[in-house]
């Protein structure tokens, strides 16, 4: 004979023993300050994403490439910024790097299609030292001026002139280790105002001598851009990485490492030293950057979507380009000193690949987890809130780096991330 089924009141049980929660309890906001948790819709809602592009990405300075990717006059590099806006960076005959919207003003075609190259080689339907739209042969020089409209006078009789149809130029600065930064807002202040001194503690390493890129990888990851950036803003997840939990976390001083937050949402983790003698294959690290201890490590997160990580022999710069609320283009660059000998460069490359390459031990886990977060938090999944409430005097497992991000996010979006729907 079956026992009668007794429905347990799970709400009562949940209140009593703090065990598993029913839907009502699960859906309640955490009993924390509203700065210490976020509503997961900030990662999944399409309208919030569109607003982020307008309120944040269209208005802040964003790094797009390194100057060593276009070393010579007339070199170019194409990219995209702030969602899906195509851009092309060109080093002019005056060696200055300029950025243009990579859209032909005539019929909206992409003008420069290759990822990188030199304008000194003519396109099939154009002239050297010009960007030529393959569609109708309109040509633009390295300063963005329209240089050629085929049969201009016959077709337009003076109604459209070359002087009227130059390319859309975008504010550009080269700084902080030779990175090319752009800002889509013509009225924006200088880059220095945006970074607010955040780079000062890395200036010697980045700016004493020229850097050079040796590693470039990219992937479109099925996640929200903020989730990827957040992995760089908290080190509590060191538990995920074997070497970190088996060596780094056991080192003296690990828990003393401090975060510094800056205006405009940037956050840094200051110099720490790593016991590389505990890492197989990394016992004899010799190379570093100017002013950096041989076993040092510094990291800086620039709002809204860039991380500089300088770890002994190599600099990694990670840039996120949001494509949609659930897709992010992640670009990772590895850099050394331009003055490296071939042997030194090989050593830096090997070091970089061991940790941060696509076959490295940490990158795969970081990407795996942000992809799985996006799966678990997708709209309608039942996910509600993320907790960012660790407070440990701004030390390594404090989540102040996350809270500083969302403080700036809230300032720009005009509402709290814990209650994000307009």
């Amino acid at each position, binding site marked *: 004979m079956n026992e009668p089924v007794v429905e347990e009141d799970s709400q009562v049980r949940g209140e009593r023993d703090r065990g598993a929660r029913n839907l009502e309890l699960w859906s309640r906001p955490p009993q924390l300050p509203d700065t210490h948790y976020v509503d997961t819709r900030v990662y999944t809602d399409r309208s919030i994403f569109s607003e982020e592009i307008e309120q944040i990405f269209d208005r802040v300075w964003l790094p797009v490439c390194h100057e060593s990717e276009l070393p010579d006059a007339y070199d170019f590099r194409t990219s995209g910024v702030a969602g899906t806006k195509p851009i092309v960076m060109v080093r002019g005959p005056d060696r200055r790097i300029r950025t243009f919207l990579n859209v032909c003003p005539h019929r909206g075609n992409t003008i420069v299609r290759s990822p990188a190259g030199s304008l000194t080689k003519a396109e099939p339907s154009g002239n050297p030292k010009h960007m030529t739209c393959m569609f109708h042969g309109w040509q633009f020089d390295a300063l963005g001026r329209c240089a050629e409209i085929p049969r201009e006078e016959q077709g337009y009789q003076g109604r459209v002139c070359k002087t009227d149809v130059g390319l859309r130029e975008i504010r550009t600065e080269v700084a902080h280790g030779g990175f090319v930064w752009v800002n889509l807002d013509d009225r924006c202040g200088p880059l220095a105002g945006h970074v607010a001194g955040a780079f000062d503690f890395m200036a010697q390493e980045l700016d004493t001598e020229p850097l050079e890129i040796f590693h470039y990888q990219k992937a479109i990851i099925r996640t929200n851009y903020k989730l990827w950036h957040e992995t760089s803003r908290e080190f509590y997840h060191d538990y995920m990485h074997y070497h970190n939990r088996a060596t780094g976390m056991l080192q003296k001083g690990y828990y003393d490492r401090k975060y510094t937050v800056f205006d405009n949402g940037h956050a840094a983790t200051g110099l720490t030293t790593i016991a590389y003698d505990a890492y197989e294959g990394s016992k004899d690290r010799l190379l570093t950057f100017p002013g950096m201890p041989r076993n040092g490590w510094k990291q800086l997160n620039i709002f809204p979507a860039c991380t500089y990580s300088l770890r002994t022999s190599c600099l990694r710069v990670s840039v996120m380009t949001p494509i949609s609320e659930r897709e992010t283009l992640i670009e990772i660059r590895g850099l050394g000193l331009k003055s490296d000998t071939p042997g030194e460069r*090989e050593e830096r490359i090997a070091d970089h690949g061991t940790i941060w390459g696509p076959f490295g031990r940490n990158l795969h886990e970081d990407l795996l987890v942000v992809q799985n977060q996006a799966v678990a938090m997708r709209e309608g999944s039942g996910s509600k809130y993320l907790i960012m409430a660790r407070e440990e005097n701004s030390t390594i497992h404090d989540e102040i780096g996350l809270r500083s991000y969302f403080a700036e996010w809230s300032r720009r979006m005009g509402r709290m991330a814990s209650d994000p729907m307009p």
Partner: protein
Amino acid sequence: MVAPHGPHGERSDAVTSADSETRQRVDELIYESCLALNGGDWNSYLALCDPRDFRYRIVNFSPEIRREQCWMDRDWKGMKSIFDLLPKHNSDHSPLTRHATVYKIVCDREGGEAAATTLVAIYRTQLDGVNSHFESGQTSLFAVGKYEDRIRVGANGDAALLLSRTVRLDTRQIDIGSHYPF
């Protein structure tokens, strides 16, 4: 080191196409290496590699930065370390399947070495990488490229061994990457 051609494209007298016996030994070595990796039999894979001289690299040419780049560079000991650490990582455990076709083998008879060029396609069958409820069991092309192998062919029935393997990738976007070598 075996190079199939001299610096100006001429064929060296010492470098010849493989005879059928050598070709068979090289083919078997390369295909065995793929089967071992596909099966996660890391020890069998390492047994096919020369412990003193083996070097494994994954390279590609990036048109974005207009230079060749190296994404992995390990010797035999380094490869063993990677395999030993696999159970300690939080990996995407989706199996990778290497489909290989050996296209070209040339021999340096004096040195007892062969150089082989093998085209390889690597497929990934989802297990726990994304959403196991929706995607486990789906297979997709993960990467294409080629193996450039140097092989000690030896003589007198000695086993052929890999002296080096360079995985030259055409694919440059490999999603979330991999803890498993290609």
